[in-house]
Every structure is written in structure tokens, then in C-alpha cells.
């Protein structure tokens, strides 16, 4: 652990400010709480919101897992994990089951989450209504009045253009039957995992200075039409490494001749399944 830093990098007053915002966010599921986002030692877009939330909730005996696109070994995941190992001295892991705090970009682990775990999502743009209403004053009013009808226009456009709802990630959800929420750019494959999850889910947007949350066991419904119900992605292939048919697959190009393979995006899940087979 590096010396000269406060525990988990941020000073105690900042962490208290963050916790107050988090408490409010948990009390009003899906509602975006403004907070005083700090300058962090990495650029916006690299997970500054997620890091601040993690710093506010992490304790010395927590075990941290960080994933980026499902993998524990990508640059962003590795550097954030090392950041907390150095500034907070916490234990880190790649195992979903062992982790108490999981910071993520773009995925929810395939292994079901359990009570007591905290998911921290990195959010680039928190406002689900932004694409149809550029004015912040107006989007806040729309949230206040639960005036979300126009949101279906986007889904309508998808069906009109592609024959099905083509939005595949950051798919809008209604939290606790009240607030419309952007689930951050996770694939819609992961949306059902948010619904009624036993884990606490926290969302941090550093550049946009917003925090929101889904408390454990809260309803999270993906928007859809009666005659075009919400559906998750499916693949014809199984994972080339572990043979999983129920997980989210990445397409990997293997050579210049157009060869490709499909593998689980969740590296921990995939590795665990392969270990089981070996045993």
C-alpha cells in the first residue's frame, strides 16, 4: 500500500458527501442525485464516477473485483484494481463469488450475485431522456411527472427500421415502477439480471456528476411494446472455450483469413467452467 494517501484516495469529507448522495439514491430508486464529482487521477470516460462510488463504500476488509467488458484482465480493470490495492490496501479478486464490491464497465457477471454484494457501474451518460430532450430543466420535469411516453418513440423507430427493437445496450429500464433509468452501457442481455437482484447496485457518472441506485430486490423493467416484448440476445454458437450456451459471447477474430471464434465475455465465469471440466 502506498503511503501519503488518505484511505481509498478521497478525503473523508468527500466520501461523506458521496455517501449522502448514495443514501438519497438508494432511498429513491432510479433517481439521479447530483454530487460534487472530484478530479481523479485518470481521465473522464475511464470510470471516474465508478471509482468515486467505490471509494465511498469500500472498507478495509472488502474484497474488490473490477471488470471491463466482462474481463478482469483488460487495461481499465487492471489499473482500477491496482489503484484501490495501492490506496486502500484492500484485497482484490477475479472471482465473482468472493468479491464484496464489484466495479464494472459494460457487463454484469454471469455468476448470480448474492446478498451483501455491491455492484458499482461506471456510467458515461446517466440521462435516459437526453436523446429526445436536450434541456436538463425539461428532462428533470419529465422525471418529476413520470412523463415517459415519448421514450417509446425510440423503440418504435427501431422496429420500423429493423423489424425488431435493435437497441442492444444501455437499454432503458423503469425502476420500481417509477423512474426511467439508463443501466449504463451493459448489453440488454444483462438487463434481466438487474431485476429483483439480491445485490445493491450503485451507478456513478463522474463527468455528468450524477449518482443513482437500485436497492436489493427492486423491480427493474425493460421498456417494450405489447406486440414486441423485450428479448435478450441469443447465439447459435456455444462458447468455444467452455461450451457455455447461456452466457454473453464475444466474437473474436483469430486470423487474417476471417477465422473467428465465440467466447464468453465474462472471463471469470468461463475460467471457472473450464476448471470444473478439468476436475
Amino acid at each position, binding site marked *: 500500500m502506498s503511503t501519503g494517501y488518505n484511505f481509498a484516495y478521497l478525503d473523508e469529507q468527500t466520501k461523506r458527501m458521496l455517501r449522502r448522495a448514495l443514501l438519497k439514491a438508494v432511498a429513491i430508486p432510479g433517481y439521479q442525485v447530483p454530487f460534487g464529482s472530484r478530479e481523479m487521477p485518470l481521465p473522464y470516460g475511464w470510470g471516474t464516477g465508478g471509482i468515486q462510488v467505490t471509494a465511498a463504500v469500500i472498507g478495509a476488509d472488502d474484497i474488490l473485483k473490477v471488470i471491463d467488458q466482462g474481463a478482469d484482465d483488460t487495461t481499465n480493470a487492471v489499473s482500477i484494481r491496482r489503484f484501490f490495492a495501492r490506496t486502500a490496501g484492500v484485497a482484490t479478486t477475479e472471482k465473482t463469488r468472493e468479491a464484496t464490491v464489484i466495479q464494472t464497465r459494460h457487463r454484469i457477471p454471469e455468476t448470480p450475485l448474492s446478498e451483501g454484494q455491491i455492484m458499482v457501474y461506471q456510467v458515461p451518460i446517466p440521462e435516459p431522456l437526453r436523446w*429526445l430532450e436536450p434541456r436538463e430543466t425539461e428532462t428533470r420535469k419529465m422525471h418529476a*411527472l413520470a412523463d415517459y411516453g415519448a421514450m417509446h*418513440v425510440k423503440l*418504435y423507430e427501431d422496429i*420500423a*427500421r429493423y423489424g425488431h427493437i435493435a437497441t442492444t445496450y444501455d437499454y432503458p429500464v423503469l425502476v420500481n415502477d417509477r423512474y426511467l433509468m439508463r443501466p449504463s452501457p451493459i448489453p440488454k442481455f444483462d438487463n434481466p439480471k438487474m431485476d429483483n437482484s439480491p445485490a445493491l447496485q450503485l451507478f456513478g457518472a463522474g463527468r455528468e456528476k450524477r449518482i443513482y441506485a437500485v436497492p436489493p430486490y427492486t423491480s427493474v423493467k425493460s421498456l417494450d411494446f*405489447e406486440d414486441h416484448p423485450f428479448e435478450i440476445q441469443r447465439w447459435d454458437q456455444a462458447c468455444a472455450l467452455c461450451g457455455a450456451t447461456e452466457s454473453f459471447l464475444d466474437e473474436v477474430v483469430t486470423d487474417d483469413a476471417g477465422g473467428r471464434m465465440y467466447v464468453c465475455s465474462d472471463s471469470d465465469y468461463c475460467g471457472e467452467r473450464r476448471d470444473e471440466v478439468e476436475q
Partner: protein
Amino acid sequence: MSQAPLLRVSNLTHMYGNRVGCRDVSFELWPGEVIGIVGESGSGKSTLLSCLSTRQQPSAGLVEYDTADQGLTDVYALSEPRRRMLMRTDWGIVHQNPRDGLRMGVSAGANVGERLMAVGARHYGRIREQAGQWLDKVEIDPTRMDDQPATFSGGMLQRLQIARNLVTHPRLVFMDEPTGGLDVSVQARLLDLLRRLVTDLGLSAIVVTHDLAVARLLAHRLMVMRQGEVVEHGLTDQVLDDPHHPYTQLLVSSVLQP
């Protein structure tokens, strides 16, 4: 004839600082009636229309609308959700520039369907069916339903805007220079369409225009505005054929005859 007016306006005044937007305007609009507001640019027509359609809080006066459950109600005393509901169910607003009233980034069908979705329609097939019917009613080929409005002509855009407003069967439509900026042949088509829709649907409408011919074709009654005040008010053909106020006489005599 029904017993209650649809809209009652009493002593409506709006000031922009010391400047008069509109002053002391009072009138009643009855179901099925079309009122034209005429006057030159800057006469307060558009200010009045904004104040009536809750887009501009007036400095003084009362605008009451016949709501379904409470009868005549001050529209500025309505809660925001109710006012929004009113705007997208009972009311329609047709802007002079169709781009102000349309969502230019989404298809024609989505533009028409938006109001349906906004009031809770969640069946794609039925939304689409209704959007198609309305495009047909405003003489837009329903095969253009999935096209972007940017590919439409000015006249088509204006008709699309009208379809978008009428899809929820409003009772009252506010129109701000609905034929402004269109060339004459396109204007004629739009006017005929508006006339037919207003009659067939029994719409009430308040039409702001500086074009007296448009007013004659569409409006039952006329209000002539000058410097924010209504100077003459009466049956459309009476005001135009036997104008009394000096300003109305000037307005009528200034029209170019082709």
C-alpha cells in the same frame, strides 16, 4: 348548440416590460367554432396565441377551458401534469414552421405515433395502423411512413404536423400561420384539407394569420388586432366586407388582388 363555451378568455393582458404584448382581450370560443386572429406583424397575434395555449404565462387575465371533469377551469391553475395531458390529448398546436412542431430526427410514423405513445399506447401494430390512417387523411402516401421528415417538402411537413396533432382527436387546435411560408398551390391544398378536417371532426380552432383570404376560408369569426388590442370583432364575412374600424378598413383595402 351546446350550452358551455369551450374556452373563455377574460381581460387577458401580457406585457413585455413596458411594452404591450396584448391588452385586455376577452372572448369565448364555442365547440365547433373557428376564430381567426388577424393583424399585421407585431400586432400581438402570436403573443395572444402563446398566452392562450399555456406557452406564455400572461401578466393578467384569465384563460378558462372546458375540462372533461371540472367544466371551465383556469388553465394556469391546472397542475403541470394535467396541463401536459391537456396539451397532448385535448389540444393541438400547429406551428408556422413545421420543424418547430415535429421531431425531425425520427420517421413520419413515429412523429404521428408519439402522442399516442405519450398517452400510454403500447401496441406497436395498432400505433402504426393509426399513424398510417392519419398520414392518409392528410394526403401523405402511407408508404412514406418510415421516411425521415427531412425528405419531405414544406407542404408535406405541414400536413405531417397536422396529422401529429390530430391523432389524439383534440377538441381545440391552435394554429400559428399554418400556411405561412408555403407557395400558393401548396397553400390551397392545405387550406382545403384544414377546412375539411375542421368540419368533419367538429374541431374548434384559433387560427392566427396575416392572410385575410386564409381567414375568410377557415374562420367563422374574426378578431382584428392592432398594437396588442382587439379593434374589431365579428363574423368573418361581415368584418371583411363591411369593416368599421379604420385599421380594419386599411387592412382590407391593402390586400393585393391577383
